[in-house]
């Protein structure tokens, strides 16, 4: 399990590195000009169903909206109740696409293989920065990953020496000194939950006090309405009422703000690939509907949709590679 997981991680890491290579740091959140313009094909119709990540729910919806402009009688149905709901739907064939904010787990891949005889194909589509949000008035300057672990987890596998319960424990003074930290997080069905647990909690366990929210946006809203709160959610959901705290990998390093170039540079510790899984028999051709949707994802239009929902688009190199993985040339 861990072996397979680490392959997944390696894939993602590779993708991130590609992203870095294909992007000069100054490009920020601009589109890669080398991405192709989308040209509609003929005879695409049918029902396009996507079930999976909540983080990518809006992204999927934007893609579908954009795709539907080209194919108005395609029926797109988007469901996003958490990454965990994706694999079963893909295995069952109830969904054509399973957007996931984390790579599939070994067991999920095994289940898929058992039914279909080959593994599902993961398409890296965009990059998210998982941000740790605090209320806009919160003066906290930075957090180390070990501190984040000590805030959210009861196991403290990150190695911080004591549990952090109040803002005073993080060095804030004044009225903040003995205010307890209110914790907001996602429900366990979400990929964000899994990813945060793996990378910020070092595979530890969440505290029981974490208020598990049904959606990424509700985490942000929870933090916005609670002055002493902290929570984690995708960068796409940031509002003016919250602030993303710069994160440092450890106490000696510099804290990295949740900004695009830092993610492309591979410095932001909680940057992750947002994936879309498809069911494709190796060597087989995708049906027109799915083929065109995948092509749309990796077009200028598709990646500009990524920008519109606040995530980071990928570059042409990853796009070409991803298209090749489902047998498509750009």
């Amino acid at each position: 399990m861990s072996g397979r997981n680490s392959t997944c991680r390696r894939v993602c890491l590779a993708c991130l590195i590609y992203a870095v290579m294909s992007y000069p740091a100054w490009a920020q959140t601009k589109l890669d000009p080398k991405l192709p313009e989308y040209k509609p094909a003929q005879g695409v119709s049918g029902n396009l169903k996507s079930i999976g990540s909540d983080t990518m729910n809006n992204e999927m919806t934007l893609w579908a909206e954009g795709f539907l402009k080209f194919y108005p009688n395609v029926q797109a149905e988007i469901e996003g109740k958490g990454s965990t709901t994706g694999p079963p739907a893909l295995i069952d064939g109830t969904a054509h696409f399973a957007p996931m904010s984390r790579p599939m787990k070994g067991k999920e891949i095994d289940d898929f293989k058992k039914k279909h005889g080959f593994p599902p194909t993961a398409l890296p589509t965009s990059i998210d920065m998982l941000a740790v949000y605090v209320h806009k008035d919160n003066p906290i300057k930075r957090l180390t990953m070990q501190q984040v672990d000590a805030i959210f987890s009861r196991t403290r596998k990150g190695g911080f020496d004591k549990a952090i319960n109040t803002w005073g424990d993080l060095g804030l003074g004044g009225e903040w000194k003995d205010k307890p930290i209110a914790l907001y997080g996602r429900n366990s069905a979400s990929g964000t939950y899994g990813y945060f647990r793996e990378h910020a909690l070092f595979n530890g366990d969440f505290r029981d006090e974490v208020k598990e929210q049904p959606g990424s946006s509700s985490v942000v809203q929870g933090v916005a309405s609670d002055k002493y709160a902290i929570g984690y959610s995708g960068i796409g959901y940031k509002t003016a009422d919250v602030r993303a705290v710069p994160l440092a990998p450890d106490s000696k390093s510099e804290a990295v703000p949740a900004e695009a170039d830092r993610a492309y540079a591979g410095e932001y510790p909680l940057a992750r690939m947002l994936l879309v899984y498809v069911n494709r028999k190796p060597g087989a051709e995708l049906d027109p509907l799915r083929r065109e949707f995948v092509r749309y994802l990796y077009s200028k239009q598709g990646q500009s949709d990524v920008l519109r929902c606040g995530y980071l688009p990928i570059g042409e190199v990853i796009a070409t590679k991803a298209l090749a993985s489902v047998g498509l040339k750009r």
Partner: protein
Amino acid sequence: MNASSLAPVTENTPGGKSGRSRRPRKGNSVLAQGEPSIWGTGGALVVAITMIVGLLVLVLIQGAVTFWPMDLVRIRTVDGKVYLGEVTREETYRPEAEVFTSLPPRERDRAREAVQQAAGVARRRLLRTGNYDLTGFHHQWVSDFQIAEESKPEWGLVVERLTWGNFYGTPTAFLLDGKEVASDPDDIWAQFVNHHDAVAERFSRSVDLNRHGIGALSRKQNAALLARKQAEISYGKSSSEYAVADKQFAEVESACKEEDARIKSEINTLNKENDRFQLRLVTADGQEKILPLADIVRAYPANRLSFGDEVGIYFSRWAEFLTQRPRQANTEGGVLPAIWGTVAMTLLMSLVVVPFGVLAALYLREYAKSGPIISVVRIAINNLAGVPSIVFGVFGMGFFCYLVGKFIDGGPQHIQVAPMPPAWWWLAMLAVVLVGAAAFLVGLIGARDRAKESRFGRYLGRFAVALWLLSLAPVVYVVVHTPYFSGFYEANLPSPTFGTGGVLWASLTLALLTVPVVIVATEESLAAVPNSMREGSYACGASKWQTIRRIVLPRALPGIMTGMILAMARGAGEVAPIMLVGAVKLAPELPVDGVFPYLHPSRSFMHLGFHIYDLGFQSLNSEAARPMVYTTTLLLIGIVALLNVMAVWLRSRLRRRYLVSQF
């Protein structure tokens, strides 16, 4: 002992003139007076009413003001940033000491002093600054002490775009074919007003062409493709049927290709024409942006509007909200699909739930002899009404979607049931038919005998019912194991058609959820039909069914309608179960539309309740979505109220027909 103890008591009786011992009155007991209970009950009522009214007023106000156009404010902060936007909220707060350190040194003391004078409290306003494509944020908080200069620019323009959300800026040029034809704001605005309607008209024509023209083509092509696939499944690739289907497909494809090219060129011309018109704007911080007119839904100079203009914009926004499809992951545009989805689902549900509920109630109240079984059934029904709705959702998903739906899609194999060998199946079929026929015959004889009030007839009737029940399970078994059915949508597999959530399954699930409401209401109204009416009918020689149909049902109709109203109100507002059986975030195709067969029961649908949930908890831009939450809530309340008013109106009409005062 007895006497001695009695004597002093008599003596000590208070005011003992009469010598009679009276129970001392607790005249000042609070409970003995009526007022506390009046205050208590009245107070409870007032609290309840206040809560309801408060809720409604909140939703009403918040929902109603959302679309009112607001003034544009341009703010330059002391650290040199410039923002242009609408003020959406304001609040006061106590700034931390660090807040001031970020200000330039000269302003720092001034700001600190100002805040100190206000007892440490500062005001800040949330500006909706838009321009997300340029800045990466939608909103910005600005505290009063940060402001160096504030103004309301005359030509500040609010531009609502198809993509990327609002744009705020001042116009610098109107471009025709890339050439500047106007550069004075007045002229630019005149040009915009002049051309925008035509552009919007062309745009909607091209969307229509795309949707209906190209849509119909691909539908045709898809049908041919499916037919070919079906032929392949049924007869094999080398069969003549496949060859025919293949030929047909090729024909359709080539025909469509021509038509497709024609429509596309038409769309292209429209778009080309539209591309000629562009608007150049400059943002508050000096960036230039060229917007094609086709991308602009609506634009207005916010600070130059007369009251009439504001009203116009307000209503045009409402119109857009009610008649357009959503944009920008549901945060903008309209909610037409959600309205349709909600209404279609509710009506479909009523269509199912009313007949079933009424028949069940009729049986319970008119036919069934009261006994322990009936009591248990009644209790069960009443408890059904109290089951958490999500349970119904789970049931609906498991039973309707994954069992019935998959069976419809792909036959027995698709639900992991091995079909019976044909010989066995026919044998089982024969047995079922025989039992069914026997039940029918016995029932018939029994009915004839029962008319003569013989006890034998009643036994026969029970026997027939038992036989019916006995044949029911085998019927299901035989149907499920049929070797001759491999699904109506086999060619479409593995894509599910009915084997997933859809408006039909959602309606059935909600029907299940609301059937107790209808049963209880109907039973009550049946019970309220005076027995004297029934007796009068029987005395005229009417049979039971005639009495029910002609006397009892018409008289109970208003009550049945009440049940239906309650069921509809409950059904339309229920969100949890339908999330599992067909409500989705985006389903721009309506469950009811102008394409044959008009009602598409297998389609997923959007629902206002779910839309509210989605806006509230999953929205990209929760700040912008919040007012939409209220507006959508207002709309949902409005629709439920409208459905109710319709039903109430119908009911009162019926009432007037049947229930004029007794004397």
